[in-house]
């Protein structure tokens, strides 16, 4: 039921793990099914220099987190904020209709991490 891209990202997730010296962290939960994603970002000169994720969820949730981190790594914060769930699903080669909701956490978590980063640096 999943595309080859999804299975590849599920089997060999990119940027999975933790980051000890992260500049910002964000947790996003999916209330409809109980999945959770955590995103860590390291920012330098307004660019996402490094990104890591951890996801508790189904194949679609893990694969969308993985591909989304790949898509925004090296992008400016403004560019990264524009990432949409549609783009993530397209990049995955599509998802079964019932699983699309599983991919929304990725974009949300990235946005929240960037917001957290900006909030924190405003204070400094």
């Amino acid at each position, binding site marked *: 039921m*999943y595309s080859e891209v999804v*299975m590849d990202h*599920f*089997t060999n*997730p990119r940027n*999975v793990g933790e980051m000890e010296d992260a500049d910002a962290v964000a*947790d996003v939960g999916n209330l*409809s*099914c*109980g*999945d*959770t*994603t*955590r995103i860590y970002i390291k920012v330098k000169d307004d660019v996402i220099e490094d990104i890591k994720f*951890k*996801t*508790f*969820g*189904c*194949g*679609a*949730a*893990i694969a969308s987190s993985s591909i989304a981190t790949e898509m925004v790594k090296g992008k400016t914060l403004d560019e990264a904020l524009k990432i949409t769930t549609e783009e993530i699903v397209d990049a995955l080669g599509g998802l079964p209709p*019932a*699983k699309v*909701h*599983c991919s929304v956490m990725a974009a949300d978590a990235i946005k929240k991490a960037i917001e957290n980063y900006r909030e924190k640096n405003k204070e400094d």
Partner: protein
Amino acid sequence: MKRVYLDHSATTPVRPEVVEEMMKYLTDNWGNPSSVYSRGREARKGIDEAREKIAHLLGANPQEIIFTSGGTEADNYAVMGAAFANQKKGKHIITTSIEHHAVLDTCKFLERQGFEVTFLPVTPEGIVRVEDFERALRQDTILVSVMHVNNEVGTIQPVEEIGRVCREKGIIFHVDAVQSFGKIPVNVDELNADLLSISAHKIYGPKGVGCLYIRKGTKVQKLFYGGAQERRRRPGTENVAGIVGFGKAAELAIKEMGEETEKLTKLRDKLIAGLQEKISDIKLNGDPVQRICNNVNVSFKYVEGESLLLSLDMKGIEASSGSACTSGSLDPSHVLTAMGVPFEFIHGSVRMTLGRDNTEEDIDYVLEVFPEIVDRLREMSPLYNK
């Protein structure tokens, strides 16, 4: 790659002996059983023989067996048919919160038709309490429907006791025996069942065929209108090869039940014990003892069920899960929910149901690959702290 099929409660492969019997009715004896000439009579004979076999195995009379398209139709026929045929006596139905959707959703449909349904709760182990059932009884209760064995957690329900009470009170009792027939004794008199559903493809027979036992004298309104087949109760040209295969599969299942149960119980307990020994934060769902011989249902904290199934599938292991993400409807298992299993455990539940082809080596293989799979997914989970 090694392949281990552990989803026998979903369906089973058709046994070669069954295929062989069926082939005769797909090739030589392909006639319409309602026809008067010999080709039709040959087909009729096949159906009659299958009906006699199944009736005998259930402790019933052949006239009390109505072939259907499977367990779901049998359940619909029983519940809807008994409710509509007896609604002048009352409109109250009792069932349980852990029935198969074939019963559960039919009861919900009947609620919309003006019936009142009590959905009995279950213990944390997934077993209905007879006291709760007795307390739910009313003057206007016309039908009680309780499954013999739960399809998700394998718990064996106290249907004998419930049936005895129904018999005393003259209430129609339906038993969904789809998951029990062929694994534990199913006798309509011992269970005091007036209606009883079974299915062929759970016992190494073909898909698309099952039957409803209807005790003589039980009023049941039919679902379909048409010809005179199945004594007018279930019109439509019979699935002859399917019915013949069903008869053969049932005969073999009952013949081999004793040794098969013994073998599967050993494998089941080995699998449960092995997983509990090798993996932390694990929970066995259902009752450890009052459990059908082939069911293993376990939950792993911090791991999501669908991810587990995908990972198992990559290792050639085929299983199922009660996770919301595998249901297609986003609803987590209604059975585990009714048992009060905490959400994080429902999300990480896996059902493995054993069958006649499984071996000790299969279990060793599962126990070898399972811990790494859980470890890998937990490593990825933000909820997990080592």
